[in-house]
């Protein structure tokens, strides 16, 4: 932290990644190591884990204690859902969505993956690619996480043997050939000993690639956003009840994708009216170019009836207006999905109701096999379903646009979020 510079701090990129792994493959140790070696651990935190390590009779300071969770979790020996951790290097600020590896795993990893630039998947080199590895990678591909890093861990337990690493990497390549992942990296590490996590290992001179931290710091993420298709879901209409701003109508929201400029010809959905952008502003400052993920306020050159849930797009590049469509669904509730059931559906800033018309198939996420006969969709299942909505949605396929291609389903009586869907 001695290299801290204010100018540098204002020039950092934000990178979100998710970590996944099964019990005992060293995920907590790896996160503890990243935090510790990047000097994000404060003295009072370190003293606390030193004390606990000693009390528990460990030989070394157990870095995994740094990510030790709630009392409720320790009592039951499980991790409850996603925990978020933060660290920064002079290059980037990182947000880790740390997801547990037990039964509720799919629900949690999907949650953590939904906003991630990268996924870290841990593989124990001695065990190689196991069912969980396939599951993790499938979810990363389903959620279209742009980058995947396979951390082949516990290299210290196989004498840092290159052949063992190659074997696991080859195994994984076989699996990934069936998946849709753009960018895959393999790093041989020992989270426990620190090899190739932050510092380059002296024990694996055969490995010429970057350390995990180098990858995280240098991976190209600025093209992860869609800067082509202009989509602006209207979130809130600003109408000041003040004399001075009598005729002011500002459409506030967050840009999903594309680049908007004052003067652009735009179309408003669903009414189809067109206008030109008069100004794009935030707090009185005008913005010359607005792009994802900025939050701004747009004003138009003529008065159009626009409310929350409408979408402002470019005249010549419009999303699909859909009412009957298929989604890949991850089910997240103890109560099963009801075929023919009705749910609330949320898409961008729009809310409607939907009817489940058909369950097409369920995916066995351990073998990636599609089962068209199994219609029982329970917690953590992934399925392709057909739905019909009460109102049209302005959407793009999830593969093209994560923001305008995603939906959640909400149970009408419990109000719980029960499903996450990706528009096919």
């Amino acid at each position: 932290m001695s290299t801290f510079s204010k100018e540098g701090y204002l020039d950092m990129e934000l990178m979100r990644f998710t970590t996944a792994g099964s019990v005992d493959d060293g995920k907590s140790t790896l996160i503890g190591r990243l935090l510790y070696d990047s000097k994000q651990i404060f003295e009072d935190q370190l003293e606390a884990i030193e004390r606990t390590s000693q009390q528990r009779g460990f030989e070394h300071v157990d870095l995994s204690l740094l990510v030790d969770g709630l009392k409720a979790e320790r009592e039951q020996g499980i991790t409850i859902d996603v925990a978020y951790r933060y660290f920064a290097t002079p290059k980037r600020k990182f947000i880790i969505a740390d997801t547990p590896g037990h039964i509720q795993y799919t629900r949690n990893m999907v949650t953590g993956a939904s906003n991630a630039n990268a996924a870290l998947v841990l593989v124990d080199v001695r065990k190689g690619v196991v069912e969980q590895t396939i599951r993790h990678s499938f979810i990363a591909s389903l959620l279209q996480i742009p980058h995947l890093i396979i951390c082949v861990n516990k290299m210290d337990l196989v004498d840092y043997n290159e052949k063992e690493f190659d074997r696991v990497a080859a195994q994984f390549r076989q699996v990934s050939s069936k998946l849709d992942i753009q960018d895959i990296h393999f790093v041989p590490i020992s989270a426990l000993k620190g090899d190739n996590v932050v510092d380059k290992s002296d024990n694996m001179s055969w490995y010429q690639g970057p350390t995990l931290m180098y990858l995280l710091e240098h991976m190209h993420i600025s093209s992860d956003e869609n800067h082509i298709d202009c989509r602006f879901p209207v979130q809130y209409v600003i109408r000041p009840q003040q004399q001075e701003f009598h005729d002011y109508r500002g459409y506030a929201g967050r840009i999903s994708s594309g680049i908007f400029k004052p003067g652009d010809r735009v179309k408003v959905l669903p009414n189809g009216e067109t206008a030109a952008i008069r100004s794009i502003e935030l707090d009185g400052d005008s913005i010359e170019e607005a792009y994802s993920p900025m939050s701004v306020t747009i004003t138009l050159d003529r008065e159009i009836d626009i409310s929350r849930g409408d979408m402002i797009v470019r005249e010549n590049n419009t999303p699909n207006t859909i009412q009957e469509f298929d989604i890949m669904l991850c089910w997240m509730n103890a109560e099963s999905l009801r075929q023919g059931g009705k749910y609330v559906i949320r898409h961008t800033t729009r809310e409607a109701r939907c009817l489940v018309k058909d369950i097409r198939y369920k995916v066995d996420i351990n073998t990636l096999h599609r089962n068209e006969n199994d219609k029982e969709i329970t917690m953590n299942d992934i399925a392709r379903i057909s739905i019909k909505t009460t109102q049209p949605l302005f959407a793009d396929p999830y593969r093209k646009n994560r923001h305008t291609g995603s939906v959640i389903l909400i149970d009408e009586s419990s109000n719980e979020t029960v499903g996450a869907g990706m528009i096919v």
Partner: protein
Amino acid sequence: MILYHLNHLRELEAEALYVIREAASQFERPVLLFSGGKDSIVLTHLARKAFHPARIPFPLLHIDTGHNFPETIAFRDRLAEKTGATMLVRYVQDSIDQGRAKEEKGVNASRNLLQTVTLLDALEELKVDAAMGGARRDEEKARAKERFFSHRDEFGQWDPKNQRPELWMLLNGRKNMGEHFRVFPLSNWTEMDIWMYIALEKIEIPELYFSHRRMIINRSGTLLAASDYLTLKEDEKPEEMTVRFRTIGDMTCTGAVPSPASSLEEIIDEVSTSTTTERGTRADDKRSETAMEDRKKAGYF
């Protein structure tokens, strides 16, 4: 393409503005919980930005323990005037007088826990369905698992085992009668982000954050401000020191740090080289390892 990339602080700002606007859209009677601390000051600044040129479309609510620093109260009143926002104040003293809350006794007595009673009563009285707060996930491990939209049952309680999954930025604020939400737009900010943003946006903060001379009681390493609210142990004697506060809560449980930092730049330098966590100065967190988790479950901020 680097041209079209926001730096991390502007991305956090955009995310917070989105969450604040979402709360204003999805709820009928939201409030912003204002504590006088830097996080809630930043939150108020963001709320103002989110709706400019209109005024903030919801009131600010301050739970006044009666043990606040006088500087905090003066700052609060000035801020309300400047932003034109409605500032509602509810008093812990009233809860005590009504027999709803019981004052703690002894040298470590604090009104920190009592705030929860006054807060929940105020939310009920004002029929609040969403209370926005400046809590950050990096502050404490119980907060690391919070949602942007955090559901509370009809008793105002948090159930960490039964939280709604939060995907993409699709926030689900649907609820049954009597339930409410806590909303945390600054979830992904760290202490350093807050300070850098204060400097970047030139946000005014209370003098307490800057180095000043003050009478201090050193209670087993925690430097507490001498005040009428603090009961002294026998061997304790106030001494004058040059200090500042890293967090601001009640006078009885907020520890100062010895510091010469008298400008934002100096504070940022200090924070960047600090070797202890921010809440390390808070006596309320030191009561037990799970102090925050327990208070949160009961309906604390």
